[in-house]
């Protein structure tokens, strides 16, 4: 039996896992569900040895696992298939697999033997293998998943942990994959399946554990639950919201027009698929979707970090400030420079920088004044403009980013998972600020991209759903969180 006992793990100030207990039995498929940021991947990394927990331990068959050592985990019989690619692109698939467990020859490296063993196992699983000596670079995403699963199985593990393995599989491949999992179960292995696809979890799992914000919020079985219930648990407490979001009429002038935005990545995979959005001033449009459906890339394109393959973005009726203010989801990595002071982080936004610069000359006192003004106005808890951004708590950093976005007086604010990691009070405050911005006559439009339905339902006038790089409008009256959660989670209408 695999057990995680009271696992706690922090990243900086964020509590990723909070005293999580988890167990999985031989001959069982145990599904771990939750939205991204819930802590599933962190838990998996702790179990697989890539990450050491701050507190707690992992135990397999009564023996405690050495923390932070993938080698120890593999030796104990735990193999993982990660969500982010862990293949070596420039090597051939045989070489990739040889680094797994197929290389059992005592003497010299024999890639042919590795290939033979791989093919044998693949045949048993119904997988197709790439042509001989093909490098991984040009293989399709589905092939890569298969290779990673194969590599994990090559260790003949007692425990197999899979993180979102089916998110890139075509529906036709899905059943075969689920059968594969059932086969592994019947061999007596422990299978931990991390997924947000609730239908699959219910179809194949024996037990289901739901994580939310680093805590276990439910333990159940498919018989006792349903997709709707799980969606509700995953996404949040369904609190009766005061009717704040009276459907805002499209009163304002058009603010942003995105036409047929398409983005293909290097391997030709389509990430954004002819996305078209029209937003008017005063609107708060929500784009709901589970992470990994193109949101990050959309934000990058809007910020100008990435060039789309085709399509057009037009900001209409330019306001005195900049056209678009972007608040990226990785606030610590992309939105702020933690070593710099607050006023420096503020002037990262070009419009604000221009405000405090004359003839190229930066006025630190003006920047500091602006910073103080914003600290007051947005109630950022910070000693002063000279504080470094790294010294602020997560909530205050978020306030800073929102303050910066609004102070630059943009036509459109695009915010990605803006309230992730914030408590309810901080979330409410951010929402109030956004509402004020939108309802201000000289304000602009807001696009909120989020996987948190609570938040979107609370303040968005219009709700779009993004799935596999596609945007779908929802009916204006459609407000049932469970149903929307299902749509987000990939169900077909």
């Amino acid at each position, binding site marked *: 039996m695999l057990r995680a006992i009271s696992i706690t793990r922090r990243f900086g100030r964020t509590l990723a896992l909070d005293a999580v207990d988890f167990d999985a039995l031989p001959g069982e498929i145990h599904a771990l569900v939750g939205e991204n940021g819930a802590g599933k991947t962190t838990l998996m990394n702790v179990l697989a040895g890539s990450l050491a927990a701050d507190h707690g331990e992992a135990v397999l068959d009564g023996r405690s696992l050495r923390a932070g050592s993938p080698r120890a985990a593999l030796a104990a019989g735990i193999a993982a298939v990660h969500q982010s690619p862990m293949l070596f692109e420039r090597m051939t698939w045989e070489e990739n697999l040889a680094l797994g467990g197929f290389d059992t020859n005592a003497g010299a490296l024999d890639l042919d033997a590795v290939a033979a063993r791989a093919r044998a196992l693949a045949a048993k699983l119904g997988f197709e293998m790439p042509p001989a000596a093909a490098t991984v670079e040009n293989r399709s995403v589905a092939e890569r998943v298969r290779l990673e699963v194969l590599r994990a199985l090559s260790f003949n593990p007692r425990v197999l942990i899979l993180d979102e393995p089916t998110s890139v599989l075509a529906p036709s491949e899905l059943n075969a994959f689920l059968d594969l999992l059932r086969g592994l179960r019947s061999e007596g292995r422990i299978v931990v399946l991390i997924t947000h696809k609730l239908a699959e979890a219910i179809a194949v799992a024996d037990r289901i554990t739901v994580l939310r914000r680093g805590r276990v919020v439910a333990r159940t079985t498919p018989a006792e639950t349903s997709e709707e219930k799980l969606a509700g648990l995953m996404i949040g407490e369904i609190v009766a919201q005061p009717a704040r979001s009276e459907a805002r009429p499209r009163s304002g002038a058009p603010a942003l027009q995105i036409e047929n935005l398409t983005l293909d990545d290097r391997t030709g995979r389509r990430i954004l698929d002819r996305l078209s959005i029209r937003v008017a001033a005063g609107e708060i449009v929500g784009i709901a979707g589970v992470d990994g459906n193109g949101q990050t890339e959309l934000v990058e394109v809007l910020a100008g970090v990435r060039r789309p393959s085709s399509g057009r973005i037009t900001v209409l009726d330019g306001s005195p400030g900049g056209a678009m203010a972007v608040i990226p989801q990785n606030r610590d990595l*992309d939105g702020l420079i933690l*070593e710099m002071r607050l006023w420096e982080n503020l002037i990262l936004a070009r419009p604000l920088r221009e405000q405090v610069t004359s003839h*190229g000359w930066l006025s630190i006192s003006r920047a500091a004044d602006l910073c103080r003004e914003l600290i007051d106005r947005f109630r950022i808890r910070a000693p002063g403009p000279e504080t470094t951004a790294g010294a602020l708590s997560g909530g205050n950093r978020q306030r800073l980013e929102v303050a910066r976005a609004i102070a630059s007086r943009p036509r459109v604010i695009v915010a990605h998972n803006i309230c992730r990691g914030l408590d309810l009070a901080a979330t409410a405050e951010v929402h109030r600020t956004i509402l004020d911005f939108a309802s201000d006559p000289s304000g602009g439009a807001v696009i909120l991209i989020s996987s948190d339905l609570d938040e979107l339902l609370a303040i968005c006038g219009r709700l779009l759903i993004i799935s596999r790089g596609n945007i779908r409008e929802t009916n204006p009256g459609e407000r049932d969180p469970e149903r929307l959660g299902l749509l987000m989670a990939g169900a077909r209408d």
Partner: protein
Amino acid sequence: MLSSIAKPFAALALAAALISIVLAALGASPLGVFAALAEGAFGSWYACAETVVKSTPLVFTGLAVALAFSGALWNIGADGQLTIGAMAAGAIGPHLGNFPHAIAIATILAAGVLGGAVWGGVAGWLGARRDVNEVISTIMLNFVAVQALSWAVHGPLMEPSRAYPASSPIARAARLEFYFAPSRINLGMLLAVVLAAACYMLLFRTGAGFELRAMGRNRRAATFFGVRIPALTLWVMALSGALAGLGGAVQVSAVSHRLYEKLSPGWGFEAIAVALVARLNPLAVIPAALLFGALDNGSQAMQRAQGISPELVQVIQGLVILIILAFDTPAWSGIREHIFGAPHDAAAPPPVAEAPDA
């Protein structure tokens, strides 16, 4: 604030301790050596003046390196940029005899700026347009510059009597005067100090300087906010080269008055130590340059008094850089956080923990 000053001093202290071990192994007395160094650098009026002279090129190259490093652009090519700047100065210098003094000086220095800017700009262009790692390109360009100088003084620029591989002397009009003769103190240092102040203003008081520092700290975040990385790379490398090139021109105009092989005894590399000790702050480059210039100057006296060759100064340079890097490693801040809890207030530490894109 205190910690940012304490670090260089701690690093220097540790370097001194390690040097003492080396000296002991050589059978020399550490105290005797340090005393000889100090004596040689500051022992007499002439010695002090000479220290200033020897520090001048280090201010120029130190500024060049500090500026580039602030943007996480690892310019290892200050030596080559200085050399090309010197070459340009040495080429045009002999022909300025008929110009008024001020014009001649301005011209010869401008030539240095241009030469260095081009040499730095090549590396910048390669990085911006062809994604070539600036580390490799600047190192390669160093060597090309050395060969170009060698060819020039053996060939087209060789002085008429063809007795030595050196260029014709520059015209009197183009020479930066000696003051307080017989010392060699000249306006070059004054120019360097003014430029240091200018670089400080640029880096900390302009929008462009801010973009550079943002790019150096977090390239990805900078792109999110519209900083155009390729253009900035090109401009900064050109500016960095220009500063180094100007240093070369000053050296030719004020001290050497002609070109010869091996013009730079490694100022471009010494500049890395200078810039790191100064923690990339242009104003602090001045005292840091003086420190290393003092070591350079004192090393001759040290050799006479203690029999230790002047290369000891390079040992000091290397050790200082390594120690500062070791102090600044993220591993330390992780350990520090463990012990002290709070994230440390980083005033302006060098962004040396980040990697160049290779």
